[in-house]
């Protein structure tokens, strides 16, 4: 009793009685120590900046990308299905980008084919078999792999894979397979760490259930753990593919950048990203070529959105 009385007496007598009411001006709201308005403004502001940036990029790319069809009257259908990319001719330039769309797709798929088995394998090793050892050795290795800049991957590809291809498969050595190998190694850590996380997320009760009905370790992994991790493993692969799809520099260094349609994986090719990075510097804004490159960028964006959509659908299925 005494203490509480003493504490009350310490408080100023002129404490405003109406402090329950929010009667503050616009400026006072920001200067008042107890106001939440400042924090709220910063956080809402950051969130909206991100949203605005995404919307702005999409809008800008759409407007720029549609110029070649609307302003320059390039036929949309021949643009996405044509295989003749001849932009240097002043008289009759042709813009057929199918070779690059196909190049991007096949490099991505090949990279996924190369990376997936290794990534899932090492994820199983890390998350199921050698938990301690895997955690101590493999985890740092994977983090290092993530941290290596893409130009280094490209450079290693250029000095190791390209000569190897030249010796064993003929030609210049610059080809689609070389690009796929380089990108495959690049996406390996991404796929591995997400796959390992999704394997770890499988509840132990399922492993117990499996052992209790007389399963061996391998049967448990292949028939119970992997199927249970299923859709998140798919997410890992698709995420890796979307990284592979967007990679430009490393691919550009080893793929050969031929605008002709590749007929085998040992032919040089080009992808949407490599053709943009190679040609963009040589064009002037507003020229037909420049507009065509923007259209390639738009296609790239749309396909990236498709990847994100697939990931969303997969994760939604998981939550059901």
């Amino acid at each position, binding site marked *: 009793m005494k203490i509480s009385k003493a504490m009350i007496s310490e408080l100023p007598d002129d404490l405003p009685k109406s402090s329950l009411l929010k009667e503050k001006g616009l400026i006072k709201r920001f200067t008042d120590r107890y106001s939440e308005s400042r924090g709220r403004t910063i956080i809402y502001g950051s969130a909206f900046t991100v949203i605005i940036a995404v919307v702005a990029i999409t809008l800008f790319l759409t407007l720029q990308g549609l110029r070649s069809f609307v302003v320059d009257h390039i036929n949309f259908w021949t643009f996405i299905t044509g295989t003749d990319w001849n932009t240097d001719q002043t008289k009759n330039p042709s813009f057929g980008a199918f070779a690059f769309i196909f190049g991007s797709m096949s490099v991505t798929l090949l990279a996924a084919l190369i990376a997936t088995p290794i990534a899932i394998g090492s994820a199983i090793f890390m998350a199921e078999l050698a938990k301690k050892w895997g955690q101590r050795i493999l985890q740092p290795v994977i983090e290092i792999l993530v941290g290596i800049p893409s130009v280094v991957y490209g450079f290693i590809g250029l000095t190791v894979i390209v000569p190897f291809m030249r010796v064993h498969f003929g030609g210049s050595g610059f080809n689609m397979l070389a690009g796929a190998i380089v990108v495959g190694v690049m996406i390996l850590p991404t796929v591995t760490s997400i796959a390992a996380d999704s394997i770890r997320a499988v509840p132990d*009760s*399922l492993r117990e259930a499996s052992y*209790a009905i007389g399963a061996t370790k391998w*049967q448990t992994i292949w*028939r119970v753990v992997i199927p249970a991790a299923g859709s998140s493993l798919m997410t890992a692969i698709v995420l890796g593919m979307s990284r592979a799809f967007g990679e430009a520099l490393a691919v550009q260094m080893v793929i050969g950048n031929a605008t002709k349609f590749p007929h085998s994986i040992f032919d040089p090719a080009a992808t949407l990203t490599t053709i943009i990075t190679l040609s963009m510097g040589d064009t002037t804004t507003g020229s037909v070529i420049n507009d065509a490159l923007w259209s390639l960028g738009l296609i790239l964006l749309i396909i990236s959105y498709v990847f994100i959509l697939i990931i969303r659908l997969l994760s939604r299925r998981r939550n059901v």
Partner: protein
Amino acid sequence: MVVQMENKITSFVNSEDVDRPVLINVEDTNIYYGDNHAVKHVNMPIHERSITALIGPSGCGKSTFIRTINRMNDLIPSARCEGKIDYHGINILSPKVDVVKLRTEIGMVFQQPNPFPKSISENIQLPLKFAGIHNKKTLRDVTEKCLKQVGLWEEVKDRLDRSATGLSGGQQQRLCIARALALKPDVILLDEPTSALDPVSSAKIEELLLQLKKDYTIVIVTHNMQQAARIADYTAFFYQGELVEFGTTKTLFTMPEKKSTSDYICGRFG
């Protein structure tokens, strides 16, 4: 000590199921988690085609003990077992035992229903497939038989291809029992199978266990003393890692020998 106890038990027998031969005999078994001596010098018989209940307060070692009978504790790296659990003349704890084969003969059902996130029929067929049985007709027949055994057939026969995770908790637990029955084990171990279920589902499972004991040897860990009294032929009371008392359920509940047993049964601790 054990023999003495058994002699006493026989004088109290009046249930028809308590004079079955011993199938599993536990002799001086110790279980450690690292330095922690979790189960101490346990001696007890498990009788064929009867229900043996393990009761005791939380952390008394009863779950640890039941998980040793089919070597599920092998999955815990720090767990270590000493002693002898005799089953058909073989020591279950011997490192030479094929644990995979052992678990097909001694099945287990867990506290939380844990069906695989697969179809209902696949949940029952998976143990068979693991054992190398792929004949479609056999698989279908066993599925139907096992689901009928647990009384789930009528409820799910139209949706065998649907995911097992869509079933109710009680149905999932009965599915898990059906899954454990698929390989026709000798023994079924149940680790608190009804503690995650509502009273109606629990009652169904108890009824089911009374049915199953005609063909199977059942060991059940339970927190619920009434459950032990209702269904078990034999009851073992564990306290602080020791087997305090073992006897027919009737003896243990009506005339317990040890004070701690009667204290626990009367609800004075636990």
